[in-house]
């Protein structure tokens, strides 16, 4: 197991001395060579989850284990030896993820220089190799990021994340700001790298179809909680939580889409009971009083749902085959 969180909580102070609870008991795990997709709308806490497991913020509750070691409250020197050396991040916006004042080769050798790996020339050589690995020309190493296209910059962002040969890559919406054609290239790059290097991904996105395309398992987040988690095909094709059903219906023709009423609730005043009940098409009185726990389903192993009435709202069948994405790389092949 590369990464595991136990009841992870993260809150931040807001004006007026109050705190906003962004993560509310999130328990996920990522195995070696596995992709865990995290989906949810904005404000669901998926980005905060990524930042918390990378220890860019200190969790306010629960625990984070990286490669078996508790890093929840590790200090920076300790983190440098474990998490910083073995985990990296890819960002959404390629325009802000590269320093405009650094040549690509300098941006790429930086992680190695921080950890004092190799000599200067060895580091440069590794940077050239990595550029070629992500499909860029080594001649571009002396360029500045502004001279590259968005897709090329994102490749450099991926290359930088791989420089330390990490076990885990946290990808926070890495394709959201790219053109559709470039998106596909970057997604393929992610898959190729996973096959070749055995990387584990925590892949964060709002796009359920994209996530199901390259994930082995999917966690669906709503208002700081995981509401459904399970094998990608299960969650995508046979969603049990009404919120996942809503998300999953988005790939259907406009007339068959389910749209939840209203806006996502405020994190400052979360609804009582199940957080989704004000927008849920099948909400009943119990939903507004009692929060459902994440419970394993009998029929599929590893499929858990936090709903009082799992499976009551279903996708009408028949369309899965038409739009079903190709399956992700099997875990055995990765290892």
């Amino acid at each position, binding site marked *: 197991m590369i990464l595991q969180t136990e009841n992870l909580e993260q809150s931040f102070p807001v004006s007026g001395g109050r705190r906003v609870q962004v993560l509310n008991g999130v328990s996920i795990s990522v195995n070696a060579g596995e992709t865990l997709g995290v989906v949810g709308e904005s404000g669901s806490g998926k980005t905060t989850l990524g930042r918390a497991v990378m220890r860019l913020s200190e969790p306010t509750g629960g625990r984070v284990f990286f490669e078996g070691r508790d890093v929840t409250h590790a200090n920076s020197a300790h*983190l440098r030896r474990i998490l910083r050396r073995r985990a990296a*991040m890819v960002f*959404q*916006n390629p325009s802000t*993820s590269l320093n405009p004042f650094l040549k690509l080769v300098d941006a790429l050798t*930086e992680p190695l220089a*921080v950890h004092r790996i190799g000599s200067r020339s060895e580091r440069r050589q590794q940077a050239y190799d990595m550029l070629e690995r992500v499909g860029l020309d080594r001649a571009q190493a*002396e360029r500045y990021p*502004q001279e590259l296209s968005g897709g090329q910059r994102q490749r450099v962002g991926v290359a930088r994340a791989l420089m330390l040969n990490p076990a885990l890559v946290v990808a926070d919406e890495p394709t959201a700001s790219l053109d559709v054609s470039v998106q596909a290239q970057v997604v393929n790059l992610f898959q190729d790298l996973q096959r070749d290097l055995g990387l584990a991904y925590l892949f964060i996105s709002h796009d359920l179809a994209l996530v199901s395309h390259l994930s082995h398992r999917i966690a669906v987040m709503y208002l700081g909680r995981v509401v459904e988690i399970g094998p990608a095909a299960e969650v995508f094709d046979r969603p049990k939580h009404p919120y996942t059903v809503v998300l999953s219906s988005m790939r259907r023709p406009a007339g068959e889409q389910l749209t939840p009423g209203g806006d996502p609730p405020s994190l400052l005043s979360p609804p009582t009971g199940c957080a989704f009940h004000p927008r849920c098409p099948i909400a009943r009185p119990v939903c507004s009083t009692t929060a459902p726990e994440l419970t394993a389903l009998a029929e599929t192993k590893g499929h858990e749902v936090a709903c009082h009435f799992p499976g009551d709202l279903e996708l009408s069948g028949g369309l899965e085959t038409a739009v079903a994405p190709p399956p992700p790389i099997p875990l055995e092949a990765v290892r």
Partner: protein
Amino acid sequence: MSSSAPAAPVARRSRARQVAASTWASATGRTGLVMLAITLLVAVFGPLLVSTSPTAQNLMATNQPPSWLGGSGGLMGTDALGRDVFSRAVHGLRLSLLFGLGVATASAVLGLALGLLAGYEQRFAGPVLLRLADIQFALPFVVVGLALTAVMGPGILKLSIVLAIWGWTVYARTIVTSVAQVCRMDYITAARTHGMGATRLLLRHVTPNVLGPVVVLWTTSAGVMILVESSLSLLGLGTQPPSFSLGTMLGDATTQLRLAWWAVVAPGSVLLWIVLAFNLTGDGLRDALSSSGRIEHDPELV
């Protein structure tokens, strides 16, 4: 052009060289740079070429008008003690210039460091530093300078230390928002996920992004510092005899203004020249920086 093959690598220019070239290309920047170069050359080599001693007194020839006014006082006349004003201006220029550049550089470095700290550490150090800067902005320097001189005694070295420390606020206040902005960029987060320490992060990633305004401020403040030194020396708080700067020359000569106006006009014009040189260079640099690729419109940056 030489770019016959489309794939041929383009010759890459570093950002600094790009800015320097574009400063030189503008009329303002070029004038400023030429004036600065002349000033520096005169300061370095001038005293070797002027044969008359700047301190030799000739009480038989006091307040002699310049030769081009029919007097016998040399190029710029003599002052109340019969010293050669031209020679004194060339020598006095050295101290003024050294003072201006030294104090401006020291306060720029200090202001940059504190500005980086204030923008990076926004929980405690940042607000405290900015409130301190507010307080300091409310106090006129002359009052503080007078008070400190009364306590510590006058002297050019003390004055320069006080001014160097006093000058941090302008730099820090100018860069603090940019620092905070840059610190929110993803490449800073990326560097943190690789385990880069705060000092290295600020020096390597943040400083280049805020160096532009610091350099512009530095050039203008070098001119301002020379003026401040002059005005404080004029009040007798700065340079003490037998040292002399352009400011003390002005101070000495004001008493004889009616008898020997040239002894005031000469150092005054040199001051005007220096400050103008610094300001023009600063203007040229600012234009060059704002038109260089850094702030250019990037359609991908929402």
